[in-house]
């Protein structure tokens, strides 16, 4: 009885004024109250470019995982995949906001209306060649097994990077990494547990898991090669050298695949950076068209 009245009361009171309804109104700067000073000796353009690399990976993978929502195998998995996508979206927002705070906005700032915050200017008003995401996260989902194989690789790699990034000389990056480590540890665990079930489940799931792993492994090739930006920022104590996480990533993946009774595909030779330099295959334009279309149709709108 009491509960019923409470909820009705809350709704009735809401007639009276905007205050009752509009909590969360407006846009809150995700970096509000954070000291965004760039560390000494660091080129803000480099720092911003690095934030775009890490932010775009998170944004694009969140978009891919969101494609599973309403299509997942079980309701529990709907919730889990949406949750992982939400974590990554949160990381993307912080990283894009950090890129904006150091002035790395380029043309997106003039294309987006004044009411649009930096994170959205960057997410919605950059063109394909301005995105810095790796081929690993851009690749289509494939079936559930391939989705899980990609998530395992992406989470393992990103967790290894973020664990080291907690010591970054940029306090904002260090804080984003510290928050992200807990999330990524869960993502890796979730994907790892699924790969065990699929690899050691039925004959069909084993075959699909192996095919998923085989499809994803070549995408490891450019993950461990530093761009010039990453090399300079690593020297400055701001970024993590991607080569430094290779052994950890390999050892985790080897262990999970072995326990999942899957054959280890050949480890690909290191390749030159591609996505990190804005070079993308045909899948990213299609993904961005869907992501950006509505926002670009209404550049002066307020959402």
């Amino acid at each position, binding site marked *: 009885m009491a509960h019923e009245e409470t909820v009705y009361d809350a709704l009735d009171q809401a007639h009276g004024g905007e205050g009752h309804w509009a909590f969360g109104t407006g846009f809150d700067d995700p970096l509000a109250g954070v000291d965004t000073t760039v560390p000494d000796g660091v080129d803000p353009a480099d720092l911003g470019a690095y934030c775009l690399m890490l932010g775009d990976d998170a944004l694009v993978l969140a978009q891919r995982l969101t494609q599973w929502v309403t299509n997942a195998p079980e309701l529990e998995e709907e*919730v889990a995949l949406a949750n992982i996508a939400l974590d990554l979206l949160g990381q993307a927002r912080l990283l894009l906001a950090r890129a904006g705070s150091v002035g790395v906005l380029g043309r997106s700032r003039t294309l987006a209306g004044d*009411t649009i915050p930096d994170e959205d200017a960057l997410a919605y008003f950059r063109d394909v060649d301005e995105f810095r995401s790796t081929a690993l996260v851009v690749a289509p989902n494939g079936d559930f097994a391939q989705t899980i194989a990609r998530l395992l690789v992406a989470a393992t790699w990103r967790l290894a990077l973020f664990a080291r990034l907690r010591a970054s000389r940029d306090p904002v990056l260090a804080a984003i990494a510290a928050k992200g480590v807990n999330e990524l540890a869960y993502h890796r665990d979730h994907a790892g547990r699924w790969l065990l*079930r699929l690899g050691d489940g039925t004959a069909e799931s084993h075959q699909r898991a192996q095919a998923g792993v085989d499809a994803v492994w070549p995408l490891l090739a450019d993950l461990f090669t530093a761009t010039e930006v990453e090399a300079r920022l690593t020297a400055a104590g701001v970024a993590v050298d991607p080569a430094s996480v290779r052994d950890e990533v390999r050892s985790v993946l080897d262990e999970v695949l072995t326990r999942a009774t899957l054959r280890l595909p050949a480890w690909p030779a290191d390749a030159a950076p591609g996505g990190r330099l804005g070079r993308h295959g045909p899948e990213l334009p299609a993904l961005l068209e869907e992501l950006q279309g509505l926002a670009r149709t209404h550049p002066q709108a307020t959402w």
Partner: protein
Amino acid sequence: MSAPTRDSLLDDATLEAYFDATIAAGHRIEPRDWMPEGYRNGLIRQIAQHAHSEIIGMQPEGDWLLAAPSLRRKAILLAKVQDEAGHGMYLYSAAETLAADRADLTDKLIERRQKYSSIFNYPTLTYADVGVIGWLVDGAAICNQVPLCRSSYGPYARAMIRVCKEESFHQRQGYELLMTMMGGTPEQRAMVQDAVDRWWWPSLMMFGPPDDDSPNTAQSMKWGVKRHTNDELRQRFVDMSVPQAEFLGVTLPDPELTLDPESGHYRFGAIDWAEFKRVIAGEGPCNDERIARRRAARDDNAWVTEAATAYAEKQP
């Protein structure tokens, strides 16, 4: 003193008298208590229909997840659609306390042997639809569901408390989106009005047929499964929504909508019950699409569930 259980040796008449007394006293029926088969089956039907509505209801809004126009809106919508999956899970669990089975209920949904709320058979044409669904559709759902927090069946009542709290949050988020859009460009304001025009009447239909054409209402109210009639709840929703529409600055698409000063209630125009029946019968704009997607999620991924089961059986 606790209620007799199903294992009790008491005869049915005694058990039923005890059941009726429990209901009359406003106490809750719990899963192990004896209950008439009609009560059990009616509840399974109602809870399953509600659970199906949550799961099918993920689709119309889910269609905007990939295209949400800001990252903040994307996060809000993703969290909301995720909540709906959670509501479906609690509700299927509540049905399982009555000896129903989630997979079987899902099969019945896909084979169209059980229904879901007809509102989810309408398409979401613009992003304003996301806001209007929050405001009107979730608003109507709250009016329907808040009384169910006092349902005579314990597990359902307890699930509804959490569902209602989250629905209330969703309604406010929807309204807040509309407020923001009404403060935006002329195109955005036009989108909001258009969405209100399309969703208002289907929202009124969410309360079900009028009382003189609602065959289950009397028994459901006697058993305390339902607490108010369809028309009472519909009136409550209209009375609540009119001032909200005025504050928002939109016009509700009903020229007959007027305040009756004597009763204090808003009088509204005739609902097109023929349309309601068509949509219920499967002829709404999106019925086939909604069921097809649910069927594909089950069938295309059946191998995943089989794998998880096989793996679990192998563990020591």
